[in-house]
């Protein structure tokens, strides 16, 4: 029996297949969640089946915002439990996991590889991936282009916490002729400061560990480390943390 985790987030859908002993990741897949979670879930199932196993060989656990749209899953778990488990697999037994997702950000405290506490952002997209996506869109950039620009920017202050207000603030900054790289850099700083506030609400455990789509954004990781005053660890596989955790929790 193999174990698969399907993590349908608000922005990206992730799937991993893990070996029978749950020690290694056999295969991984990442795709945009699109507008129809159910269709995305079906595409991930087709991919799993294309790996040469039959459905009966695999135990499938779904998680994430779209977990209810995975009709073929054997069970579902919340993304908090899964991210915690997955992060512990990748980063160690005691961690303060910082997951910056497409529509929410969470801090999960892990001790002895167990979730002991967590906090999520409120009903607001400040401090989430959505914030940067909106700002990049406003500047006519893709997220990778946006980060590439931001690397060369000066840290200016974006004072609006609200995504909608920050968007109009950025329009004004562009109107004033502020360099785009500075605006991009400032937007990343805004997310980092909001995330750091969330982190400060809980007593941390072990090292900081970043999961989610920004695990390959050196600027964000550097800024977050600076603000928290301690190194933030991550790995390219950290975007799969939810899916890995789901697979690990399969019985």
């Amino acid at each position, binding site marked *: 029996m193999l174990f698969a985790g399907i993590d349908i987030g608000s922005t990206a859908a992730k799937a991993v297949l893990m070996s029978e002993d749950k020690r290694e990741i056999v295969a991984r897949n990442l795709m945009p969640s699109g507008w129809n979670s159910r269709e995305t879930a079906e595409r991930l199932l087709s991919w799993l089946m294309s790996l040469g196993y039959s459905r009966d060989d695999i135990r499938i656990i779904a998680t994430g915002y779209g977990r209810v749209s995975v009709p073929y899953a054997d069970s579902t778990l919340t993304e908090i*439990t899964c991210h915690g488990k997955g992060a512990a697999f990748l980063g160690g037994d005691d961690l303060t996991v910082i997951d910056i997702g497409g529509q929410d950000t969470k801090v999960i405290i892990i001790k002895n590889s167990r979730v002991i506490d967590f906090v999520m952002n409120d009903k607001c997209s400040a401090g989430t991936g959505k914030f940067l996506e909106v700002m990049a869109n406003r500047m006519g950039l893709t997220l990778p282009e946006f980060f590439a620009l931001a690397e060369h920017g000066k840290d200016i202050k974006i004072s609006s916490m609200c995504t909608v207000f920050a968007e109009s603030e950025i329009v004004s900054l562009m109107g004033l002729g502020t360099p785009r790289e500075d605006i991009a850099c400032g937007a990343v700083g805004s997310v980092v400061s909001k995330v750091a506030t969330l982190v400060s609400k809980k007593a941390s455990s072990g090292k900081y560990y970043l999961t989610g789509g920004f695990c390959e954004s050196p600027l964000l990781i550097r800024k977050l480390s600076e603000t928290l005053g301690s190194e933030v660890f991550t790995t390219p596989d950290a975007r799969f943390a939810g899916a890995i955790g789901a697979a690990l929790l399969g019985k």
Partner: protein
Amino acid sequence: MADYHAMWESLGMDVKTHDLLCEALPGAFGDVYLSQENRPEGMDYFNMVVAEIHGIRPAELVEHKKNGGKVVGTFCIHVPDEIPIAAGAIATGLCSGSQFWVPGGEKKLPAATCPLIKASLGARFDRTCPFFRLADLFVGETTCDGKKKAWEILAEDAPMYIMDIPQMKRPKDYEHWEDEIHGYLKRCEELTGNKVTPANLRAAIKLLNNKRKALQRLAEFRKLDNIPISGKDVLLITQIAFYDDPARITAQINKLCDELDERAKNNVSVFKKGAKRILLTGTPLSIPNWKLHHLIETLGGAVVCEEMCTGIRYYEKCVDESGSTIDEMIKHLTERYMGAIHCACFTPNFERIDDIKRLAKEYKADGVIDVNLKFCNIYDTEGYFVERELNNAGIPVLGIETDYTDQDAEQLKTRIGAFIEMLGN
């Protein structure tokens, strides 16, 4: 359901708008309540009362008023119902728990006001709640700034009487509240034209103590390993206790408890084995606010206790019945209504933290969910101590903020679901 339109018309209600509420309620009640499996039969009475929430009881109040009786509406469990009852009036709770009334309240109040206050004003100004038409006196209190100022606006349309609740619990504050209750007694006498006698007041104290004892008896079943009644059913009963006839609901609760005694003997549980036991603490859940209980209990949790105004704070302690003079009885009412209720409006309020820890133990809670109605500054701020002290005591705690809408249902599902998963691992 019987047709109450003529009564609603005669009460000056906006019947057309009110019909929208009447249409929505059965669906919501069916989804949350009637879908439960293995409910005690004794819930039938409470189902009926809710099905005709704006019919049966308002009709009784209309009848009472026809005979010259008065109705006193209240918004806070610090205000002793014994007083209007002793003066021959009917006391009814007025706190509103539906989003239906919120936009009406927002016409007059800042958006950053808690939904309970907004809904209460909306219910009056939009003329869509019979209880808000029937009350001859609206008793407000100064428990928070939101309420205090809202009463001034409500007073433009409704006959208000304001009681000044102290913010500390020093001896002189008890004296002050005692004095306020004396004033309330006088006001109720004026309203009804009846003199409050020691015999009447003693009878009112007994009457409401009996209601408290029945609610306590009901709560005891929630301490069992096999809980014979759901948390949301107990919440419903508590909510109804705020406005139903006290003697009748006492009898109905006791009847239900007799049935639960049988269930307890046979170890009947309405929850799946291993359901995580949750203690709720925080701001009140007024009828028909069943959102959190419904989420928790559909996600594999069991609500075992509410350290809330719509919970333990309402019924846990009884009033000392030994008083013989009015003055003595008012002293005892003061001790109960100020001393035994630990609202975040007091500073400091560490007794509440002690209560939460004690209740978590008594009800064998696996975890605590600290609920804050959006924009309730005092409970939100006190959440700092709640979380810290529970952490120190090794009791898992989840803080959530919500309102009367359903727009955060998915996010709450994730938070509460994750919390319950965390308790299970």
